């Protein structure tokens, strides 16, 4: 839901109601502000990163209704009425998402800056394809650049997460 404020006929701020990581949040932001900056600078969720600003690198990947989007090129106002999930919303410190567990097991990150985006793309992939092939991984992950070069480990970690997810499912979530 949007409430606009005008000053001298300039639209300066809107009160934007969003659902982020399962919680209702009221953000005061320019409706055209990319979701990336609204998440980082207004909502204070800085796990999502700025990398290129033109949807070329994937560092800003978040989920909109479970699908990966590049938040640097997505106006915050367009996210109204959708469920937004960020890296902060996929697991908790005591109950990490299987993808996060796999990322730790395979020691994926180097600098770590692109990894929130990588993990968000990977989580979306496993929802679509619980047992992805290397080709599936390449297709789903090639929008995410890693300059440190962690690609081999990303592939491994996605396979590991796939196995972990199945294990969890077969033991009834325990």
């Amino acid at each position, binding site marked *: 839901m949007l409430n606009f404020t005008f*000053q001298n006929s*300039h*639209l*300066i701020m809107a009160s934007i109601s969003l659902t982020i990581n399962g919680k209702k949040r009221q953000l005061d*932001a*320019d409706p055209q*502000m*990319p979701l990336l*900056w609204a998440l980082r*600078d207004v909502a*204070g*969720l*800085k*796990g*999502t*990163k*700025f*990398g*290129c*600003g*033109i949807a*070329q*690198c994937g*560092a800003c990947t978040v989920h909109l209704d479970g699908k990966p989007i590049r938040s640097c090129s997505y106006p915050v106002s367009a996210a109204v009425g959708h469920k937004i999930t960020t*890296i*902060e919303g996929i*697991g908790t*410190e005591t109950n*990490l998402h299987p993808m*996060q567990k796999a*990322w*730790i097991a395979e*020691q*994926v*990150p*180097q*600098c*770590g*800056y*692109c*990894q929130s985006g990588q*993990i968000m793309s990977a989580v979306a992939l496993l929802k679509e394809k619980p047992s992805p092939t290397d080709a599936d*991984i*390449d*297709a789903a*992950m*090639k*929008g*995410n*650049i*890693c*300059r*440190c*070069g*962690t*690609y*081999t*480990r*990303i*592939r491994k970690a996605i396979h590991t997460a796939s196995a972990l997810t199945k294990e969890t499912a077969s033991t009834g979530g325990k």
Partner: protein
Amino acid sequence: MTNRRDFLKAAGLTGTGLMLGIASYANGKTALVNMAIPSPKAVLSFELHPFIVIDNAGGITLINHRPDMGQGSWQAVPMLLAEELEVGLDQIQVRQSDGLRKYGNQLSGGSSTVRTGWTHLRQAGASAREMFTTAAATRWNAPVTDCYAERGAIHHRPTGKTLTYGDLVDDAAKLPIPAKPQLKAKKDFKLLGKALPRPEIPDKTTGKAVFGMDIDATNGGPANMLYASVEHCPTILGKIVSINDAAAKKIPGVKAVIRCERPMPHRTAEAVAVVATNYWAALQGRRALVVKWDNAETAKTTSTETYFANLREKSKGETSPYYTTGDVKTAYEAAPKKLEAHYQTPFMAHAPMEPEVAVAHVKADGTCEIWAPVQGPDGAIQQVAQYLKIKEENVKVNVPFLGGAFGRKAYLDFVLEAVNISKQMQAPVKVVWTREDDITQGPFRPGMLSAMRGAVDAQGNVVAFEHKAISESIMRQVFQAPLGNKADDWVKESIGKDESPYAFPNAQVSYGNVQTDIPVVWWRSVYSSTSNFGHESFLDELAHAAQKDPLSLRLDLLKGQTEGEAGKSARRFTTVLETLRLQSGWDKPLATGQGKGVAICQSFGSICAHAVFVSKQGKGVKIDKVVTVLDCGQYVNPDNVRAQTEGNIVMGITAATKSGITVASGQAEQTNFHNFRVMRIDEMPAVAIHIIENDEPSGGVGEPGLPPVAPALCNAIFAATGHRIRTLPFDMNAIG
């Protein structure tokens, strides 16, 4: 060496704590230390001063004095300390040093952290361990030999009594620091050499890790921070003619539009900052700016095309030798088979995933505080103090994690720019560069020409080898070193006689300097990623001319080198190449359309060889696998050694096959990842990495894997297709 005074002062400052420093420096061979040419503007100091803080509640804090940009210093430095201190990694807190001189050289660069710290960090840990042991033995009135250290406590073997370091710290702090503590034998290591999980990785999977980009009041940054986006001149030497900021100032949130500057070591560039209450407003304001630039000066002269033409011209004349063996000219003239070739590598942007970003607060009391992802907080203090003309003790630098750097964040233009803007605004300001700023503004890896000549006799022996490396010099441009006709020592890193120890009977390797206004700086592996391309590719050409297997030819050439440093290098090269032959299945015949290539390079104290296997695919080739052998001497964490080498392979393939930076009319032509392309996951080949086990001194691992990638790849492509690639970058999908 003990430094009692520092020690006491430090202990006093921390009240009941023990703070231990070793004020000595390794005679370690590092690229950044061995500057033969005096540098009037040197910003690096060369002391090592790691330390350990233990409080009497048992808290153990180990300092990481080298910022972590992904290379693993956050774990490696504490591991070296903890091994000898006898504490577990689960018992310690790690803290990043803040640039104060007592920590010594804090620059993450030249793959130097472990190789300069291997002995001295361990000595620091061992000294503290011995002091705790002595303190406990005294307390128990027992012989020291009955006491041993384990997991942050001293244990009395006969009785099983235990005192923790926290219990003992008051007593231990009063003892003299052992001058020559006993270091553990390699076989007794509990941490070093083990593939232990890196402590910061969990936070890097949950979004909790704080990078420079993330700094604000919620994580230690300043309150009431403003944001700035800076319009930099699109051309290299441009000047501001006029600024129309009417539209920019109408953007809600924009506070000010100001002239500012981007101070580089060799030149200061004019710029315009839009300062706002949030970053998005600042960026919108910047987009609404209309700045007229005078580009007359730069447009006439500055292009990469002109630069490379100048390099070719320079190669025709005299260059300054690194070494000369025999008489290369006569041998070349007399030989039946002569080869001559030019190899060229482009300017290159670093493009770390986190663009340049810095928070600066120039305060009313004349002090300044910085929060920024810099590779060296000590250099940042010096440069900020010098820039503001204030004392170093009035500058405080906080270093969060670096979202990649590759050399870029040891060049502090973006920090000084933030300082300039903060001073004008009289407020804390966060300057965020866009990706376009990052890619177009430089500084870049300097483009290089390797002018090669060589000859083979009738028996297939290489009888002449000549390499003229021609480029702009970082030492000249960045440090304004008076290079004159001297060879830049840094360019020798991987092509000097000791570093590339082939026993050519007649050889000369030399350097020629060509100046440019295009800003240059070190880029991961500095010159080795450029000079080694011509060096190791041309050797492949000579092997084919001699009708010899390229790996065997290398082994043959190494046999004759037995003396001194070069002889030592030759023996290690031989082991690496023989291991690679075995591990890669080098001698197995390949199918038609497949090819293999080899290259080897010594840089930053380590030796790395790759065997690359390719197959023809359509009009191009694809990489089937890369097999790597790395001799990095004694290492800290083998899994991290592998991770760094995997990264080097990716960055090496990217640099060889994607985009370089071209400059036309003074303006970089690449702007963002759509036209400065980098390798993505779908092009990642299979990789197998073998680490040589030996007791050699620690070498670097952050860079040495990169230089041999391009020559090994291009040598493989020649084997598969008959097409010799001599200019980088090239398109893997269109060979020939």
